[in-house]
């Protein structure tokens, strides 16, 4: 891939993104604007995460890319191929082996460590957008921590439906100051952000924002004293590996229409099955 600069982006772009990323880490939860570049994939398909990954990656890194927990989806494969061929890094599907994981809307089941970085793809970084359309106004609201309108929305949810209905994009208070959007991860993954060992970087390419949750940072989902935050729970475990503590996805059998539940994190599920002596091809790739 010598026709391209190392890691696809030119050096000035990488420098800018690294500086913006450092600023984001210094102000946990604060959305830092950056000059999002044109990428070889469409905006809204992970360009933010991609740019962050490409600007922090080095030849010694080991890359994993997941799309809603899945290593083998078209999007994950294409992003992984692009990153690995332009930055000459090894790839893996094993969460514990990777040093950089780029993810779309999931946090892996296995606990990540201090030497790892998790890069999120974020479609809508502005958590206040649902209550306030003006960017100028939302920035003022963040600056003054004027979050009452977001709270009123949660209150109205409880009044009308008896619970807070937000199932993904659940607003979290980071380090006691900014409320931010943890990207559309399910509620199930939100507690993993709290006091983690790992650095979390968030890139929104279309909206041109980078933000971060550094390791050992308090991340608290918004909740009322009498309506505490809850995560998804299931009556059963995964039908492939039997795990009862993972986030499950509902899937329908295309022949008889029966409903099944499987782990959303495919590499984790595969590992469990191998432990149980089943024959699973780890990291099966759709194009070999």
């Amino acid at each position: 891939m010598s026709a391209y600069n190392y890691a696809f982006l030119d050096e000035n772009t990488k420098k800018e993104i690294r500086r913006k990323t450092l600023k984001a880490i210094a102000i946990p939860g604060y959305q830092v604007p950056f000059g999002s570049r044109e990428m070889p994939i469409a905006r809204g398909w992970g360009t933010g995460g991609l740019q962050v990954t490409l600007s922090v990656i080095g030849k010694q890194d080991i890359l994993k890319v997941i799309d809603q927990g899945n290593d083998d989806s078209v999007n994950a494969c294409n992003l992984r191929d692009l990153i690995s061929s332009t930055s000459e890094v090894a790839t893996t599907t094993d969460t514990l082996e990777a040093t950089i994981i780029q993810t779309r809307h999931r946090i892996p089941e296995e606990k990540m460590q201090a030497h790892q970085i998790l890069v999120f793809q974020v479609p809508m970084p502005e958590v206040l957008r649902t209550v306030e359309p003006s960017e100028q106004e939302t920035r003022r609201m963040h600056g003054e921590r004027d979050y009452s309108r977001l709270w009123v929305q949660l209150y109205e949810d409880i009044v009308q439906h008896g619970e807070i209905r937000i199932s993904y994009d659940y607003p979290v208070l980071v380090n006691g100051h900014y409320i931010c959007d943890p990207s559309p991860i399910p509620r199930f993954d939100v507690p993993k952000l709290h006091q983690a060992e790992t650095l979390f970087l968030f890139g929104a390419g279309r909206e041109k924002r980078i933000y971060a949750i550094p390791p050992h940072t308090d991340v608290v989902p918004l909740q009322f004293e009498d309506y505490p935050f809850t995560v998804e729970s299931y009556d059963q475990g995964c039908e492939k590996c039997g795990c009862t503590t993972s986030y499950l996805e509902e899937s329908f059998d295309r022949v008889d229409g029966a409903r099944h539940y499987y782990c959303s994190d495919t590499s984790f599920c595969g590992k469990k099955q191998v432990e149980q002596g089943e024959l699973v091809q780890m990291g099966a790739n759709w194009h070999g």
Partner: protein
Amino acid sequence: MDEMLSVRQLMKTYGKGCPACLDLTGPDHGRNMCPVCGTIVACADVSLDVYPGEVLGIVGESGSGKSTLVKTLYFDEEPTAGEFYLRSYEDGVPNLYDLSSRKKRWVRNHQMGMVYQNPHLGLRLDHSAGGNIAEKLLMAGNYHVGSIRERAVQLLEKTDIPITRMDDLPRYFSGGMQQRVQISKAMANNPPLLLLDEVTTGLDVSVQANVLDLIREIQRELGVSMIVVSHDFSVIRMLTNRTIVMKNGRIVEQGLTDQIMEDPQHAYTQLLINSLL
């Protein structure tokens, strides 16, 4: 500090301003636009005090600067110059206009309530009546749904709004009901100061009487200090102890309400009193 609040030399202008602005505007000239630079002097040289539990009236014709004055007191508008002290905030030592915007917001959320002439300004019509009251409580840091709802029920009962309509949108309420929801919202966390800007304008007479009764009752029961802005002398007479008369952005006369009603000194006040129907 004996006063609940005091305001000193408050000025609000719209425009770039020039040295002649203050000299060439005001009641003596009968205008509030500077003839040299075209700046609007909405209010200037305004100093006033409100004592605890007192109701102060501000009366004047449209464009006399009375609404601008309360808006600057509620930090809706940034004043051009002036000082504002509130006894309930750090014993009235700091000038509130020098505080950071976050502290101003704190003062506004914890120490003040505002009722606007137009309910659209004070309420979020796409949130329920209870949600509107909740907003004020959430701003002040109450994150318990049960206690928020308890307080909302109390307030709506006090303001005569059926509890069954608590979770309905104020968009579908009548004007008088919207105004009462607005009063409930303003009162939600028992602020020591309530600002009322033309609260009864645009309501029909029986509803007006109803809202005025409510305000009087709140004042009597809770001893809140209030600033009541109106162009209507009958509202001022009914609610206030002391009155300030404004014209062209300046205070032209102030004193006890009865005194001003019976024995107006300034020609403009005499005109106002005489034009009472």
